């Protein structure tokens, strides 16, 4: 969910000076372009420890055995590497995007569930589900540079595009903690609804959305004041309140639409962002959690955890156009487009 305002700026070592200058002038982080651009879709499967690869026409072209229980995934800023959190191996693994070869493993990262890559390009903020901690791993040096004790069962992590804050949701503690990156400390602890899971940020950087899975809502946090300022409720027709268990959230670049995976409801909600109202519900498969929009935003990829497939939604019609069988319990989706 980062702005692509600087998407044409190519990252290379030669540009580091410019990047530093840019940073000094604007206080924002430069956004390197996507280098690989293979058009491939990567899907982590937590139960079968595999990563499935789909091509641009959404056919499975390959799959490879990954480290154990792969869940959160991110590309490096230049899109040449795929970074994967492997919970049962206590590992962060790095794969080459073009060859799918393992390039690096960072071991002894306790039970990583998911993470975000700070816009500086090298700091991974990782939620350590079992240890009630968020750790910061520098993927250039392999050094763990900080530990932040958070609530129990931390899951969603979001680094704001300006690099200022990192938000961490602790599922079992009903807390969102906000780390001030420069000050290296937790500056805010927000009590949320039951089981906060994942985040999204509006493109203007002003609101962070967090899904409260068991409370069945999305809460809106104002970034300027770090206070909860609103909520979104979901009422798909014919479903009970306890079947609405929102997890992943994605937002379009114009900040108008959001998609929320509703878990047990087997639907994805389409939310009008300005009015904070759910305007449509798309039946996608069993227990959708992971979501990803294609770069042109014409396709929404949905990982259905309990039907072992990825549903592809045409966002113009809000209809599923294809369901692709993948591994066991698909979790996260990334697209190198």
């Amino acid at each position, binding site marked *: 969910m980062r702005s692509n305002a600087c998407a044409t700026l190519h990252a290379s070592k030669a540009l580091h000076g410019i990047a530093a200058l840019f940073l000094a002038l604007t206080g924002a982080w430069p956004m390197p372009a996507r280098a690989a651009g293979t058009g491939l879709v990567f899907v982590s499967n937590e139960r079968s420890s595999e990563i499935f690869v789909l091509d641009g026409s959404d056919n499975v072209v390959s799959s490879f055995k990954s480290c154990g229980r792969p869940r959160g995934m991110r590309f490096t800023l230049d899109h040449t590497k795929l970074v994967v959190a492997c919970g049962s191996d206590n590992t962060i693994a790095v794969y080459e995007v073009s060859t799918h070869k393992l390039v690096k493993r960072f071991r002894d990262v306790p039970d990583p569930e998911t993470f975000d890559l700070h816009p500086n390009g090298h700091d991974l903020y990782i939620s350590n589900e079992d240890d009630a901690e968020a750790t910061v791993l520098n993927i250039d040096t392999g050094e763990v540079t900080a530990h932040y004790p958070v609530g129990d069962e931390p899951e969603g992590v979001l680094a704001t595009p300006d690099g200022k804050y990192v938000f961490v949701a602790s599922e079992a503690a009903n807390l969102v903690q906000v780390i001030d990156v420069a000050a290296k400390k*937790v500056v805010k602890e927000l009590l949320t609804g039951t089981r906060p899971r994942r985040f999204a940020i509006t493109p203007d950087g002003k609101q962070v959305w967090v899904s409260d899975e068991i409370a069945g809502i999305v809460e809106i946090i104002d970034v300027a004041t770090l206070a909860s300022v609103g909520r979104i409720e979901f009422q798909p027709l014919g479903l009970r309140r306890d079947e609405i268990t929102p997890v992943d959230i994605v937002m379009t670049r114009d900040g108008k639409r959001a998609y929320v995976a509703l878990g047990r409801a087997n639907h994805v909600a389409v939310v009008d962002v300005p009015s904070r109202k759910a305007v449509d519900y798309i039946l996608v498969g069993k227990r959708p959690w992971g979501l990803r929009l294609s770069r042109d935003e014409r396709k929404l990829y949905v990982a259905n955890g309990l039907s072992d497939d990825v549903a592809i939604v045409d966002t113009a019609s809000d209809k599923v156009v294809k369901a692709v069988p993948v591994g066991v319990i698909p979790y996260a989706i990334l697209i190198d487009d």
Partner: protein
Amino acid sequence: MRSRRGRKAIAGWAILSAMLVFAAPSALLAEDKGLSPEIRIVYLAREGDPAYAEVASDDGVFRPPLPEPYPGAELAIRDTRATAHAIGATVTLDKQVLAPDADAVGAARSIAEGGAVAIIADLPVDDFTAVAKALPAAALPIFNIRHSADALRRALCSTGAFHVIPSTSMATDALAQFLVRKTWRRVLVLYGPLPSDKLLADAFQASAKKFGAKIVDTKSFIFGNDPRRRDQTNVAIMTASEDYDILFLADTLGDFGRFVPYEQAKPRPVIGTEGLRPSAWDAVAERYGAPQVNHRFERNAHRPMTDYDWAAWVAVRAVVEAVARAKATTGPAIEAALARVDLPIDISKGVEGSFRPWDHQFRQSIMLHSGDAVIGYAPFEGFLHQRTPLDTLGTDEGEAACKAPSP
């Protein structure tokens, strides 16, 4: 009477959080109302409680002694420390153990007067009943983490007793829903010679009626080899006459029942005290964040988490939720919040739990497990209720002896 062990653990956590955990406390409670930050929960047990004694195994049945559920409460203190910190409260757990001849009521009274906000009662049923009846209902919540009898809920419905452990009828309702959903509706009931066997069989009978399962026959078994009593000792004979889809077994002692699945005349599944069994919790549960709770528990207690550990864990979480959401910081305020406010409590079973106003029974899903897997979670799909599907399990408002207090 404070236990050293409990206090030491708490002190350790307090130091840890002061040292490095949170650099910028937000202290909601202190900011909002200038309230006292210390929330003290007392875990009350009795020395020599027969529930935890070594069990004689003359009959050859291996019955490991039941472990005390205190580590469940301890885990919840650790699990909620970040939440407590965020709201500016300190939650402490204080274990008090009654001497074998000590007066439970007197002890509970002084606990309530001493400023504790809740009692987690790990007590024999007579002690529990006496304590709940003696203390004013609004004084503080007294959590039942052990006893499942429906009669206890009826008897204590106007007291400060809060029952975290599921009632027997919730457990048998869960089984009946499972059968009906599978369309394994014809049930043969076998029950043993103990009063608890008969109570369980009766509860199942009511559940079968409630959900539309058909009991084809009910038979009692006895132990022994007397050939003249074969009609009550020989499972093959007892199961040979009428056909049925499934056998419900009520054998709370767990001796006779071990052989029943393989001694039937027909190959039929067994549920109840053998085969598929209902429980509040299971150490091998795979869904809804349960593996994380089980793992944390095992890491601290070095043994699997039992139903009772889980109930003690929920009791602490319920108090912390009342503090966090209802801003309740005294015994009466927490009691009122749990009884009257729609206070959702996360229980790692995929649903929010809460206490029913009419009998203070904790609403929750029930696991049906086979020993090495959780087969299903009741309520099952298709069993609906105007309030919440969770209220299809156990005693509903209209069936309760007490009326719900008005909000």
